[in-house]
């Protein structure tokens, strides 16, 4: 997954970057399976790798990117960018080495047999579910995103 991420940010050809991102997303679905989350892994494969990346590839096909591949690829401020990212990395290392004792190394016994029912219970159940409102707001967000994308990409409004 790390190799896929490095390939995403360093390839000159945008289609190569998109393929590397697809492999990163599939590797991430595998890690979700390791974390006993099969529903999120399925959603990730179908939505992310099968929907969003296809959308990215369509847009890469629409814009003429061959001329861009011959130009300079990295920003004028790449040094400052990498310095900022190194500062962020230092912050992460400081946090994780200080807080290493917070996560005990217990091994959990139950598997994922009831996972989808559990997720559905949190979303939809009458006594246990608390995410129904967020669910409706997410559908409203998707409606707004559809209208926004159509308006932005039209030729004449």
């Amino acid at each position, binding site marked *: 997954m*790390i190799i896929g991420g490095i390939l*995403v940010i360093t390839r000159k050809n945008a289609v190569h970057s998109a393929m590397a991102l697809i492999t990163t997303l599939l590797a991430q679905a595998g890690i*979700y399976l390791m974390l006993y989350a099969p529903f999120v892994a399925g959603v990730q494969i179908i939505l992310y790798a099968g929907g969003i990346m296809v959308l990215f590839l369509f847009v890469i096909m629409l814009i003429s990117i061959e001329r861009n591949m011959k130009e300079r690829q990295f920003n004028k401020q790449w040094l400052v960018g990498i310095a900022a990212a190194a500062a962020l990395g230092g912050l992460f290392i400081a946090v994780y080495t200080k807080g290493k004792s917070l996560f005990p190394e217990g091994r959990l016994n139950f598997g994922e047999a009831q*996972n989808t029912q*559990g997720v559905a219970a949190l979303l939809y159940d009458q006594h246990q579910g608390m995410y129904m409102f967020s669910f409706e707001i997410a559908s409203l967000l998707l409606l707004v995103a559809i209208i926004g*994308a159509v308006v*932005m990409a039209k030729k004449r409004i």
Partner: protein
Amino acid sequence: MLHISTLHYLVLGAALFLLGVIGVLTRRNVVIVLMSIELILNAVNLNLVAFSRYWQGIHGPTALHGQVFAIFVITDAAAEAAVGLGILIAFFRNKETVNIDEVNLLKW
């Protein structure tokens, strides 16, 4: 064999987040910047699902709040990718280039 605890997943999420941040700050091509933003969102999702597994160890097998939040983040990433690519298409139609440092019409 080493037991993979929560901390290992968090470090992996942090590494992916760093790669996404480097991609956003460094590349000129707008499409690759948008793909780096997707990398950042994936790193956040990995953190959420790792913490959901940790929470399951404390509160029982139905404490799946992190996974529900991760599903919402995936939905939100889809919406934002669609709108971002729409903006990219509109921008490309006006200026015929996909480099970010040529978006300088408001520069003084």
